């Protein structure tokens, strides 16, 4: 009897649309029809408007069907989808789907293709090649490779990863740490989650290489508490890696040892800020620390510590495997390599796109995103999470590039793009930015703690038509005070979304004159 190979994703966004129900329905139907299936729970390819997307292995490669609901299953069996045959929900050969074909998947090379917790799958798709190469290099050679790749931190601040590693390597200490920032607090972002759920070994490999490079033997993944699926998958993968000699003592029979552990966060946005994160890992309240000292010099328990975002670390293996030049050849200007872009909000086609820097917002919103989900005009987008500016239509031709964005007072940040259609009231979003800051402030600085509440009141007054001219001035002054009087970007950047909303959409605030 022939066995047919079927793929059904286990990514939590796919599950949120019913992937488990589809899985069960296919199993039951196959049993009833006495058809032998080998079902693999792969990761998601990141085409979320097509989830649950089911794939079948054929001689021509994998073919896809989607979006599948349990009610579609009987007709799919009638049409013999397990042979790759046509159905009204056929999407053709998966790798030929435009959305995927037009990407440059480096960090995400395996995502959606492999079984996330299969070590065999991982190694068959170039897994642990970077580590094997790194084990033959000196510490300095590894760090040089990372520096030369031009990789900049993907967590938000875009600091060169190689320079951070060099600082930790140079810091004399018996004990050093690698901390992975998996707090992914920015709304509109899910790329960290997708790596952890869909290719956990690549993060583990990146952390091992980081430890090897700087001389650290302990790693922690500080994981946001809202990600229980990621937690389970990471723990499973760490366990498998340990049992197979990739973690623990004498990794791959080398002299190098490295231990890795997942620590669950507790729902505080500020704990994504690296020093607050370290306080939290130490079992304290997440109050932001003064810098200097940098965490690279005095980090966790006062020891030199690499704190890197999930994507930064997960990009290390391919850099070590293919070489720094290979990676640096992607991108533009000082923004080298690729960025996992997350299209979210009011768009027809949302999901994950890994692309070399340089693509414009317009291309992303219309060519990939297909325009708004509601069919109305896209009024604004917010890029880079809750502290990122709102960009109006006339800025949609800005290419994704750290410097180009900063020229227009915007940030690329963690690569999340949230689109809003023209039914949105931008003054409400501005008010929400302050509200979020008030809820999440760690409380250390007055402008952030008190100013955020003040900000909501001022916006209310402007909207109620009370002393508008004066209150607009108050709002701008407050913004200035927060930008200059805050210890971290929570208070320091909250004015960016607020002031951009005010400048570009004054009508939404009940103001006549448009400044755009």
């Amino acid at each position, binding site marked *: 009897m022939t066995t047919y190979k079927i793929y059904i994703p286990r990514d*939590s*966004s796919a*599950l*949120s*649309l019913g992937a488990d129900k589809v899985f069960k329905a296919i199993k039951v139907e196959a049993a009833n029809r006495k058809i032998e299936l080998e079902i693999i729970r792969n990761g998601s390819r*990141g085409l*979320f408007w097509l*989830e649950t997307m089911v794939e079948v292995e054929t001689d021509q490669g994998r073919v896809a069907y989607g979006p599948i609901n349990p009610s579609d299953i009987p007709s799919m069996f009638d049409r013999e989808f397990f042979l790759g045959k046509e159905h009204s929900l056929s999407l053709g050969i998966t790798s030929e789907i435009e959305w995927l074909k037009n990407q440059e998947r480096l960090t995400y090379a395996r995502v959606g293709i492999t079984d996330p917790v299969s070590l065999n799958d991982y190694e068959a798709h170039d897994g642990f090649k970077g580590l094997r190469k790194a084990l033959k290099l000196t510490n300095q050679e590894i760090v040089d490779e990372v520096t030369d790749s031009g990789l900049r931190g993907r967590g938000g601040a875009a600091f060169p990863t190689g320079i951070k590693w060099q600082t930790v390597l140079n810091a004399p200490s018996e004990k050093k740490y690698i901390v992975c920032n998996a707090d*992914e*607090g*920015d*709304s*509109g*972002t*899910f790329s*960290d*989650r997708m790596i952890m759920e869909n290719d956990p070994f690549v993060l583990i490999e990146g952390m091992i290489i980081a430890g090897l490079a700087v001389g650290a033997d302990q790693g922690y993944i500080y994981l*946001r*508490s*809202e*990600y*229980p*699926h990621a937690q389970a998958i990471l723990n499973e993968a760490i366990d498998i890696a340990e049992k197979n000699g990739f973690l623990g003592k004498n990794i791959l029979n080398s002299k190098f040892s490295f231990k890795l552990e997942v*620590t*669950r*966060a*507790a*729902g*505080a*946005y500020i704990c994504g800020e690296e020093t607050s994160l370290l306080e*939290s*890992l*130490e*079992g*304290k*309240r*997440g109050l932001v620390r003064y810098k200097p000292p940098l965490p690279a010099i005095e980090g966790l*328990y006062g020891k030199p510590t690499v704190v890197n975002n999930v994507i930064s670390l997960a990009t290390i293996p391919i850099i070590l495997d293919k070489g720094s030049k290979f990676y640096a050849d992607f991108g533009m200007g000082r923004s080298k390599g690729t960025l996992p872009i*997350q*299209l*979210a*909000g*009011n768009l027809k086609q*949302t*999901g*994950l796109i890994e692309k070399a820097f340089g693509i414009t917002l317009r291309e992303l919103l219309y060519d990939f995103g297909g325009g708004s*989900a509601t069919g109305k005009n896209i009024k604004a987008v*917010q890029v880079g999470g*809750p502290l990122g500016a709102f960009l109006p239509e006339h800025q949609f031709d800005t290419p994704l590039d750290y410097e180009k964005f900063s020229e227009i007072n915007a940030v690329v940040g963690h690569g*999340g793009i*949230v*689109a*809003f*259609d023209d039914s*949105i009231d931008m003054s409400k*979003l501005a008010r*929400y930015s302050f509200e*979020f800051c008030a*809820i*999440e402030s760690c409380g250390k600085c007055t402008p952030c703690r008190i100013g955020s509440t003040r900000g909501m009141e001022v916006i209310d007054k402007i909207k109620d038509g009370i002393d508008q001219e004066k209150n607009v001035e108050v709002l701008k002054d407050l913004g200035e005070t927060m930008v200059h009087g805050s210890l971290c970007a929570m208070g320091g950047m909250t004015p960016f979304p607020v002031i951009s909303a005010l400048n570009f959409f004054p009508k939404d605030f009940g103001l006549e004159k448009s400044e755009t």
Partner: protein
Amino acid sequence: MLTDNKLLKIEEHLTVLKDKPGALLPIMHAIQDDLGYIPEESYEPISKALSLSVAEIHGFVTFYHHFRTKPSGKHILQICRAESCQSMGSENIESYCKEKLGIDYHQTTEDNSITLEPVYCLGNCACSPAVMIDDEVIGRVTEDKIDELIQEAKKNDNL
């Protein structure tokens, strides 16, 4: 007052975790996962085990949104209030849930079934609006879907 059994459980978690670096965070998770909340009666034994003041422990618990000092309902329904979900109508979902359950955020229904909480992004922004019930994330939520979730949750309560 806490039952002896609950105090015993707290002691057990302390024995297992107290020597870990940064022990307070995993200890609090263990207690809340086990008992559903962090009873104030736990502060005393924790303070002894970790040589921390009760005030420090109180400060810690109140800093983190995830930790609760009162029992919740049997299920926790979290509604995402963040920007991507706002762009897809989460405000309507929020008001629908509040009205349907007859409670506001941080409150529990009279039958002790559901506690309503806000959340700021579930990493499901490609499928906004999103909610989470217990450990399950639900995407592209509609009012009908909410009805279904609540019904499902209450059905299981009565088993």
